[in-house]
């Protein structure tokens, strides 16, 4: 089933995001954020599957976007990211990702999310971001 990407826009379409992406971001009917990356040959590993580094990259971009919104647009940086690789990804469907904020403190945001293709989860991620400039 083709994804309806009307209204989706690239997240910061410069530097790494432009080179590896575009990482298209939009909002689904239930209001949750949704990231989509169309796969290309250069995203793969030597075995023809999606490179693990790309799966972690997509998680970092999606979780970072959710964190940035939870921090009301303040700049944030990743402190820790834990990723589990549940299944290998093939090149035949776009990568998608979603994230959920689990807790926000004055200076930190806790977040969890997943990277998937259609209904198959490839990677789950949990991370903690620091809100920059929010003190110790």
């Amino acid at each position: 089933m083709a994804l309806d990407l009307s209204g989706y826009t690239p997240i910061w379409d410069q530097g790494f995001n432009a080179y590896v992406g575009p990482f298209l971001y939009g909002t689904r009917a239930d209001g949750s954020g949704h990231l989509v990356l169309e796969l290309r040959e250069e995203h793969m590993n030597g075995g023809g599957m999606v490179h693990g580094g790309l799966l972690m990259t997509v998680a970092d971009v999606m979780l970072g976007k959710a964190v940035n919104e939870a921090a009301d647009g303040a700049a944030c940086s990743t402190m820790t990211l834990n990723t589990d690789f549940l299944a290998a990804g093939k090149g035949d469907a776009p990568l998608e990702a979603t994230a959920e904020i689990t807790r926000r403190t004055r200076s930190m945001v806790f977040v969890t999310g997943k990277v998937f293709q259609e209904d198959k989860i490839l990677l789950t991620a949990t991370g903690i971001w620091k809100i920059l400039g929010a003190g110790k």
Partner: protein
Amino acid sequence: MTESINQNPDATPLPSPVQDIVVPDGYVETPLWDPFEAFLGPIFDKQTPSKEGATELWMAFRADARHINAGGVVHGGMLMTFADACLGSVAWNANNRAPCVTVSMQTNFMAPARLGDLVEARAQMRRETRSVLFVGGEFFVDGKLIMTAQSVWKVLGR
């Protein structure tokens, strides 16, 4: 001149998109087989004796404009992809180059890497069982620790 650890007699390394590659002192250019690593590289490696007399694997990349995030520092995705390449090299070589896949990776980001920085990694096998490998690495800029990564790898078919 020492040889890169990443040899594969059965395949031709992928070309780098970077022209005029400057190899850092003491390193050699790493032959790359994964399109995503070649796309983001070049990557360099060297082997040095550790204090305990064992061989340590070091790998490095030079941060350029392709690697930068909205905050003006090296993107976490780039650092984690580099980590996956480094720790994967240890896993692959320790295991007679049998295919293995990342099952899990935990990354702590302590300080940013910036445009022009040489990011260097020291990667080590922590423990090796018949079917599972535990590999860790530390990442430095100018000798300062900026990141650590721990990973679990599954050897396929065991």
